[in-house]
């Protein structure tokens, strides 16, 4: 039985093909169109899924869209009544999106795919059911509590549910406009970052600050009950009326207007980031405790929804040990809804049995996108007359990469199937030596062209993760933060350095805080990816070779793109990104390319204008 899951028309559209309950293929449309967060009908991703599954549309048993437009319409009308005389903006800028696009999703899919073979096969799931299904069905657990948190989907912003075998059930929910996702987005927006892509920046900024606004936020903006449920004080927000997140009252509360994007980040924004982060952590922990209370002896928790990408909060939750095990859907944002929608149809709607072993998940390392064979890559290199080196043996290949890393080279690594979800996990990654004190600045400013304060994540050999970080669990999808092991830390007082630097974050960033400084954030935390030989044998062997050469079982892993660009998908995308930045080496499958041996790209001066800053 083949099921196609679709997410589209909001942000991060994606397609997923599920065959008999197993994920065959999954990809975000942005990777193909090269438009970050592309919301359009994912025709390229759909085409890829069909190709990967070697099927035609007529082979599909169902197409499942991840959101219910009828419920969304109900919410929209309800919101019109709330906004009343202030509803002009809603009508001018949201009505069309709801009635023209979402309500006609089935016709849009027919326009895109052709009618033959898909008529009477289109289903829609509730938005948070899609999230909950994406968290539970691919998880390793037979039984789990489910928490979903995002901006909003139809009426709902937050749910607590329960999954057992092939059935999930939502038990409790919080409805729009009371939303932790929208609260976080309001702070992202107010601090001068873009909603969605800027949420990570706010999270990365938080450790520099002190949560001095925490009490103020709790007093004025959100009421949190002991069971983790919450209610926003709508007087301070404007999103109910249209396209602005916050209002004058909100600005007054924080002593002035919104930070202008790309202007200097001040202590106010840093402390706001720290404060709202503390709120997110508090709510998540209280919700988990409440779920535990509701579900008694259930030992597992699964999470999805955009807020579940907050790896710092996930790390806090993990350390609290409310649940014995936690699994987070790697594509927790809307892209992951496509997976949940397809899996819900297969398991719950069709009542198919779910085979799980309690240990291994069904996400397949999230390596679910397109791969390119060595033959295809070599043809690409030859056709374009690019200079490359082919390794004669596996041992030579891995040793060479380890040597290059040790020589402080920055390497673009393009290998195997592209990752599904926002994190690069070693197949579309830029890698470097974490022991280098200069690597952080080099990567941020000369390769990624992004803000200097943003941290880099480590990939670590799973078997030695505890030697480097204070963790006793796996984190294969880079969705948990943990502290660098105390033994590896160097004396560092953030407050002192912040005072001396007069809020110049670059000078703070450059202070050495451990023996793996390039991946140690200012509070000693790191967003960790544990790597084992089963999920990604190639990446594991690279790490292993680096460890054998240097004694260090960690490397820097950041996504293979520049700021504002979607992660690379094809060898061509990878080559362009390599040539446009100060990256030293490109590894394409088994082929190694050196920057100094390449000819400059012709007529490519305008490339930065192509990517809108995120």
């Amino acid at each position, binding site marked *: 039985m083949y099921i196609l899951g679709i997410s589209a028309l909001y942000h991060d559209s994606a397609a997923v093909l599920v065959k008999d309950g197993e994920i065959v293929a999954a990809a975000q449309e942005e990777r193909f169109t090269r438009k970050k967060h592309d919301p359009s009908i994912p025709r390229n991703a759909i085409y890829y899924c069909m190709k990967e599954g070697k099927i035609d549309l007529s082979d599909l048993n169902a197409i499942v869209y991840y959101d219910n437009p009828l419920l969304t319409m109900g919410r929209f009308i309800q919101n019109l009544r709330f*906004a009343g005389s202030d509803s002009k903006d809603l009508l001018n800028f949201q009505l069309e999106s709801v009635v023209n696009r979402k309500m006609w999703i089935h016709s849009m899919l027919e326009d895109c795919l052709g009618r033959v073979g898909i008529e009477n096969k289109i289903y829609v799931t509730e938005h948070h059911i899609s999230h909950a299904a994406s968290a539970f069905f691919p998880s390793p657990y037979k039984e789990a509590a489910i928490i979903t948190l995002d901006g909003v989907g139809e009426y709902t912003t937050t749910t607590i549910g329960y999954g057992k075998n092939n059935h999930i059930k939502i038990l409790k929910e919080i409805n729009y406009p009371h939303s932790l996702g929208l609260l976080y987005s309001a702070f992202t927006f107010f601090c001068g970052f873009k909603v969605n892509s800027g949420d990570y920046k706010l999270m990365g900024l938080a450790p520099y600050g002190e949560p001095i606004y925490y009490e103020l936020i709790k007093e004025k903006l959100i009421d949190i*009950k002991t069971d983790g449920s919450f209610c926003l004080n709508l007087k301070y927000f404007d999103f109910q009326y249209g396209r602005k997140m916050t209002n004058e009252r909100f600005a007054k509360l924080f002593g002035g207007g919104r930070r202008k994007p790309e202007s200097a980040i001040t202590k106010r924004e840093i402390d706001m980031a720290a404060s709202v982060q503390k709120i997110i952590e508090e709510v998540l922990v209280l919700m988990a405790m409440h779920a535990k209370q509701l579900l008694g002896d259930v030992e597992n928790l699964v999470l999805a929804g955009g807020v579940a990408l907050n790896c710092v909060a996930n790390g806090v939750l993990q350390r609290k040990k409310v649940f014995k095990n936690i699994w987070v859907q790697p594509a927790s944002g809307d892209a992951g809804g496509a997976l949940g929608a397809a899996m819900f149809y297969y398991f719950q709607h069709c009542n198919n049995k779910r085979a799980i072993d309690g240990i291994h998940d069904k996400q397949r390392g999230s390596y679910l996108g397109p791969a390119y064979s060595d033959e295809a890559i070599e043809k690409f290199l030859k056709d374009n007359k690019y200079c490359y080196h082919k390794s004669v043996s596996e041992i030579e290949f891995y040793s060479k990469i380890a040597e290059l890393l040790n020589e402080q080279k920055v390497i673009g690594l393009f290998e195997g199937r592209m990752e599904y979800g926002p994190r690069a996990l070693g197949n579309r990654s830029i890698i470097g030596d974490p022991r280098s004190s200069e690597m952080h600045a080099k990567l941020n400013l000369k390769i990624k062209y992004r803000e200097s304060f943003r941290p880099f994540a480590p990939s670590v050999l799973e078997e030695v993760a505890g030697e480097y970080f204070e963790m006793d669990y796996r984190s294969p999808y880079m969705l948990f933060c943990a502290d660098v092991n105390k033994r590896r830390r160097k004396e560092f007082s953030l407050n002192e350095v912040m005072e001396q630097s007069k809020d110049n974050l670059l000078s703070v960033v450059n202070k050495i805080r451990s023996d793996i400084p390039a991946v140690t954030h200012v509070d000693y935390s790191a967003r960790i990816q544990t790597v084992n030989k089963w999920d990604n044998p190639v990446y594991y062997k690279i790490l292993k070779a680096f460890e054998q050469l240097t004694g260090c079982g960690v490397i820097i892993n950041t996504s293979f793109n520049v700021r504002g660009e979607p992660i690379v998908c094809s060898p061509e995308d990878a080559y362009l990104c390599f040539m446009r930045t100060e990256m030293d080496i490109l590894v394409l499958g088994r082929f190694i390319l050196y920057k100094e041996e390449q000819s400059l790209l012709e007529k490519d001066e305008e490339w930065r204008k192509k990517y809108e800053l995120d």
Partner: protein
Amino acid sequence: MKSGEKNMSLINDKIIDDIFAWAENSEDRHIYPAISDEKSSYYVNKISEETYMIEYSGKTLEQIKKALVKYSGLSEDDEILKKIIMIICQCRYMRKEKHSKNIDKQRLIEEEKEIIPNFIYNF
């Protein structure tokens, strides 16, 4: 609409004005729950599984009306329902291609005005 902003909508201005008039007349600023010390929880129990997943196929006026009545919370004799159905049906034939152009144009407006891009903040 503020001066300088263009209405990119495919929807007839008259219908928008009518819906606005309805919204103005039906205004209820207390429709959403507010912060309360008396409440011990803000959770709502979810009981029905009926809407978890549904087949989605409505294309005729009658089918759309039936589906909206069933799922959107509007009743058959709601004045707004007729207008909503009217624009949904109207949009069906105006939809192709136009929306993608609108998104690009709208991005430019949004950048200038420092508001959240609709393609990101779109719910």
